[in-house]
């Protein structure tokens, strides 16, 4: 995986983004980034530096006050411009509790594909496939909120992968995991072929997992 070169098609391009929460100082202040097919980008920075904000801007959950977002060959501005983006970009939230909102694992993993307009049969196939590929074969009918922290992380990865995204945005995918789950998440992420941006403050983990490291500081991004 590590040797993948970043010479593919550009998937997402962020240009001079500016964003501030209410009246505070801007979190992003001229942030630019481009992500190409097959790239694995590590994004580091301290708490509150705007890492999560950046990911949320890519999928349109937050609209920047200035700057442009291009994704999959088009500029994206309005809410409905981002509908397509969200079907092709999988965002993994920091806290799996936010991501797993359905009663059972099966429903959670099926939620994305059903929204993408797949039929019940297709969806049920995708669900079993995805769960099996992550070693979660027997989990389909488990009740989400009874899972352990590590299991919740794995299932939330499954629920994102079930949408077969072209780009993955992973927000601190390993915080709070016990050593076993950490290893499992790491090897799952290494086995994926999609482009991805991984946010983490664990710099060693980032160096292991990614082909390119970017640091966010003072609202701007700099390659490391």
């Amino acid at each position, binding site marked *: 995986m590590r040797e993948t070169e970043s010479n593919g098609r550009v998937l997402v391009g962020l240009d001079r983004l500016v964003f501030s929460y209410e009246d505070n100082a801007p979190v992003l202040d001229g942030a630019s980034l481009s992500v190409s097919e097959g790239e694995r980008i590590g994004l580091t920075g301290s708490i509150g530096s705007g890492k999560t*904000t950046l990911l949320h801007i890519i999928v349109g959950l937050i609209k920047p006050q200035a700057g442009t977002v291009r994704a999959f060959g088009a500029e994206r501005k309005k809410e409905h411009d981002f509908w397509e983006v969200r079907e092709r970009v999988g965002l993994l939230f920091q806290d799996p509790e936010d991501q797993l909102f359905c009663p059972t694992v099966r429903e959670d993993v099926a939620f994305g594909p059903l929204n993408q307009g797949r039929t019940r049969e297709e969806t049920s196939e995708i669900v079993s496939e995805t769960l099996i590929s992550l070693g979660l074969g027997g989990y389909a009918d488990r009740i989400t909120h009874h899972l352990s922290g590590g299991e919740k992380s794995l299932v939330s990865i499954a629920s994102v992968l079930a949408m077969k995204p072209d780009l993955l945005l992973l927000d601190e995918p390993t915080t709070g995991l016990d050593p076993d789950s950490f290893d499992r998440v790491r090897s799952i992420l290494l086995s994926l072929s999609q482009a991805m941006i991984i946010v983490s403050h664990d710099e060693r983990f980032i160096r292991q997992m990614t082909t390119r490291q970017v640091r966010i500081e003072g609202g701007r991004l700099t390659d490391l």
Partner: protein
Amino acid sequence: MHITEGVAPVHLALAGAAIAAGGVAAGLRVMKDEQIPRAALMSSVIFISSLVIRLPFGPSSVHPILNGLTGIILGWVSMPVFLVSLFLQALLFQFGGVTTLGINTVTMGLPAVVCFYLFNGPLRRSRSWRRSFLTGAAAGTVASLLSFVLWSIALMLCGKQLMVIAALALGPHIAITIIEGLFTGFVVAFLSRVYPAVFSTPSLMKRGRAD
């Protein structure tokens, strides 16, 4: 503040259910699909709080009712929220019951809706801690008293002889109302300081979140 299982004769159970159904339908109509998570997560907290928080009261303690609070924030949506919460209470703890579910939804939910009309506006305009506290306390008190009145009426309709029970409950309930008022006052004062947007119903989705 529940009518216990079995006490309501069939016509009253059905009448209660019909009124509750009307209120719940109104609440569901107001609630847009994208507001469901918000209403549900608050309903989750309200359910938990009313079960686990114990407010000292003499040598023992009482649980908060929280319908004044729910009303100020959720308005008509309080009706479905209380239906869900009362159904769960019956199922999990045998508080209230199936035949009295409608009646109990009405005695809890209607005062909440009334509090929305009485106090939501003043609260939105409130700029001071003191005023928010007083508005919240008023909502808690009014909702608690109204619930008591509705509960007594329901009890009396179940059987005139049950008036004794209502009369017996009056004393303790006045104390409960005072505690409920104080408690709701502090909750509302906190919210109007820290998260005033909670009182302006539809606009909660626009606030972003930093990492």
